């Protein structure tokens, strides 16, 4: 190998070493745990015919989740999770929903740290007939 060939080879090996070190370091950094705040929209569905919402649920839930940064990045860039309030089995009256985070579909590697509100109530009332 000529001197210039040897120099360019050394330069390439150095550059590849830096790239490999960066990728190794970056993959470790992305595995570090962090927190992310998510705003989860609340959708009401399955209201039985003849019933109407007296007091609706909150429009959104504020959730703080923790997990590896790469999974948090995926959660932030991907489709936002939705909390579906299923009222198909509820009759007229007040229904309370506690620990709503259990019904939000999140990546299994993520842990819900806090949810606001932690519980809420929905009132269904009979539609007035003419």
């Amino acid at each position, binding site marked *: *190998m000529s001197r210039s060939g040897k120099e360019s*080879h050394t330069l*390439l*090996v*150095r550059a*590849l*070493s*830096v*790239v*490999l*070190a*960066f*990728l*190794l*370091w*970056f*993959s470790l*950094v*992305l595995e570090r745990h962090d927190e992310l705040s998510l705003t989860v929209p609340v959708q009401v569905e399955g209201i039985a015919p003849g019933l109407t919402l007296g007091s609706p649920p909150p429009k959104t839930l504020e959730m703080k989740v923790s997990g590896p940064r*790469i999974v948090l*990045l*995926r959660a932030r860039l991907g489709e936002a999770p939705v909390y579906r309030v299923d009222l198909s089995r509820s009759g007229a009256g007040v229904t309370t929903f506690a620990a709503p985070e259990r019904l939000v579909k999140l*990546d299994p590697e993520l842990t819900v740290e806090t949810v606001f509100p932690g519980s809420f109530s929905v009132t269904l009332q009979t539609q007035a007939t003419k």
Partner: protein
Amino acid sequence: MTELLQNRGLLQDLLDLALTAFVVYRLSRLVKGVMAQRILGVLCLLFLGHLLTRFFALSAARLLIDALLASSVVVLAVIFQTDIRRAFTVLTRHQHEKNETMSDVIDELVFAVASLAQKRIGALIVIERSIPVDTYLAVGTDIDAKVTSELISSIFLPYSPIHDGAVIIQRGKLTKAGCFLPLTQNPEVNKNLGTRHRAALGLSELVDAVVVVASEESGTVSLVVGGKKTDNLDPPALGKLLRRLVEPRWLK
């Protein structure tokens, strides 16, 4: 100081990255030639693949890539066991051998010059230092051999076809012989000085090389560096001077 402490995380990451790059580079040097580039390239692709499959949650592909990454250390150790063994041997002997190489080259050179001077055979030997001498050399024969007193002596023997001209030592190897050097243009140089000495002075005025001259007329040895000549050197003095002027890094 407070800012420094606040930026500790960033500094830690930078240090981590720099150390990792250094270790990867040093390890890659254990493998010779283009193989190091290929291995580094493949490892980069595997890490990139790991990141992408992790981000896009491609479980099967990730399992495969992670298995390859995890086993790569063992696989590389098995494939390159000979290179690794050689590298560890070199690592432990490196410093010792470096000094040994320098000592060998200078000893061989001093021995050859002393013996040639004693027999009144002229010799002109150039030891390249930090500035390359190639651009100032005319003609010459490529040799690329280990510096030995026998080789130097045989080159300068009168019946040798390349005895006229200089021998060039570059990075600890005898690379050329029969090279013509530029003569000094200094008008203050003694007119009785022979062509060998004029050539030695001429080259040393242009580059930082060390030139050793054995005179066939007087049987003395001179050392020329930076346009200055030191005459009548006995072998121990020549060796001492050469060890002072030629650093090991110029002989490797």
